[in-house]
């Protein structure tokens, strides 16, 4: 119990007096852990991206910094921090500097309503899911103006492509989210997770709580597929990486950015990858609820509902996204539009009809 004694000392000695002087300090706790979550997940994802791509291409990947090259991303971050920052003289300097803020803010604002664990949610807003899709749609402008302000042909082309792609794939994303709202009857993400951990009416056997997940209903399954395809496009990953296709547009909208300004775009992009996986896990795969046991005993307790399962689920989803990325070729812009307008959107509308039938028969 030495550990507990240390924790108690710490709480009694530092946290408690601080809280008495300034009780508003509790409101700063969510932003602290969300920033830690974002920075931590970005550092791990950069390393994982390299390792997974190396594995798929039969290479070794980063090796030299730390065990299995684990500290590689830290060196990358330090490199970006200490690199010279250049702004092209043709660019609109003011807008050029504002754009990273516009791209980064939605990435952090969206985390407000994501339940990472049981009760681990910054604010369980009554418009939660709606707010989430609304916030997700405002990063588009940051990308357009980043490309536009650079006054570089690659940047502008990349920015415009990114904008066209993001707004096109937001529609199937909204429509698949609507299906979840219909089935759950709430916009609060916390309640959406709880609705998937079974109830008195649940048909699933007690030792297989995962059968309650939304992805094991017909409309939920279709919505999950739609959401995941749209999510690939939303985070500009292959096969939908034409906004930043290296072989033709150098780096897309952020070609002219260097140093930490580029770093912010990088952080936003990887953080969005973790975010869409988190949203998918929350909406379709039960969020932080455990697939095996909800209240285990002894050894099984650690596999009960909680933070662990959120991270297990997003790890699997992110691995699948990377797997897709290194497997499929890039789509062309006309194919990108066809997939959305002629494939995903009609399917999403049909899925809404299926969901009406589901809600009518199975019950809300």
């Amino acid at each position, binding site marked *: 119990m030495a550990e507990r004694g240390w924790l108690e000392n710490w709480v009694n000695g530092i946290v408690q007096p601080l809280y008495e002087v300034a009780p508003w300090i509790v409101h700063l706790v969510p932003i602290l852990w969300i920033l830690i979550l974002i920075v931590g997940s970005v550092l791990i994802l950069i390393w994982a991206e390299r390792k997974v791509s190396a594995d798929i291409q039969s290479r070794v990947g980063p090796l030299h910094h730390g065990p299995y090259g684990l500290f590689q991303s830290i060196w990358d971050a330090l490199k970006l921090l200490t690199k010279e*920052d250049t702004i092209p003289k043709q660019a609109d300097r003011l807008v050029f500097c504002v754009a990273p803020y516009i791209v980064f803010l939605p990435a952090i604002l969206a985390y407000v309503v994501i339940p990472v664990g049981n009760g681990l949610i910054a604010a369980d807003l009554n418009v939660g899911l709606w707010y989430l899709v609304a916030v997700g749609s405002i990063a588009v402008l940051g990308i357009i103006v980043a490309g536009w302000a650079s006054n570089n042909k690659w940047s502008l082309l990349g920015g415009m492509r990114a904008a066209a792609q993001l707004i096109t794939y937001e529609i199937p994303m909204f429509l698949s989210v609507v299906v979840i709202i219909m089935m759950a009857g709430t916009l609060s993400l916390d309640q959406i997770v709880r609705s998937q951990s079974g109830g008195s009416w649940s048909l699933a056997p007690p030792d297989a709580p995962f059968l309650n997940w939304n992805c094991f209903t017909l409309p939920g399954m279709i919505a999950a597929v739609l959401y995941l395809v749209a999510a690939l496009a939303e985070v500009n990953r292959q096969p939908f990486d034409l906004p930043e296709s290296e072989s033709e547009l150098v780096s897309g909208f952020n070609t002219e950015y260097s140093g930490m300004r580029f*770093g912010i775009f990088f952080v936003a992009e990887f953080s969005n990858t973790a975010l869409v996986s988190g949203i998918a896990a929350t909406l379709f795969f039960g969020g932080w609820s455990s697939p095996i046991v909800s209240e285990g005993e002894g050894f099984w307790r650690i596999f009960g509902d909680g933070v662990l399962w959120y991270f297990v689920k997003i790890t699997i989803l992110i691995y699948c996204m990377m797997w897709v990325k290194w497997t499929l070729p890039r789509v062309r812009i006309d194919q990108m*539009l066809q997939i959305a307008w002629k494939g995903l*959107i009609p399917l999403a509308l049909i899925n809404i009809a299926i969901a*009406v039938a589901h809600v009518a028969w199975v019950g*809300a």
Partner: protein
Amino acid sequence: MTGHPYLQLLIMTVGGILFVAAAMIVSWLLRPNRPSEVKASTYECGEEPVGSAWFQFPAQFYLIALLFVVFEVEAAFLIPWALKLGDFLHHAAAEGVGSPWFVVVEMAIFLAILILGWVYALRKGALEWITE
């Protein structure tokens, strides 16, 4: 104020801005600054840039954005309906509508009119990417 339901949004916005600003300031303290004419020129794989990048774009992008706004407004109408669909279907009387199917038919008409527009765009070939 501390009881305001959307307080966290304010904190996150301010915190996010401060985070990016802090990263910029740390980087500004650490990084070298040796500007030169060549570094400040527009990157075009080593070529001298010809003209400005601010050129005219195909109208197709505008069409995509217009269709997007239409469908986004549609989604905004769908969400409140979806939220109460279960209540309306199973407790129609308590919600003050005669038949539970009232809300379903209502949304079916709403969507049918929009799908008509989608079919029109499809038939006109507006959903294709036209290259000249």
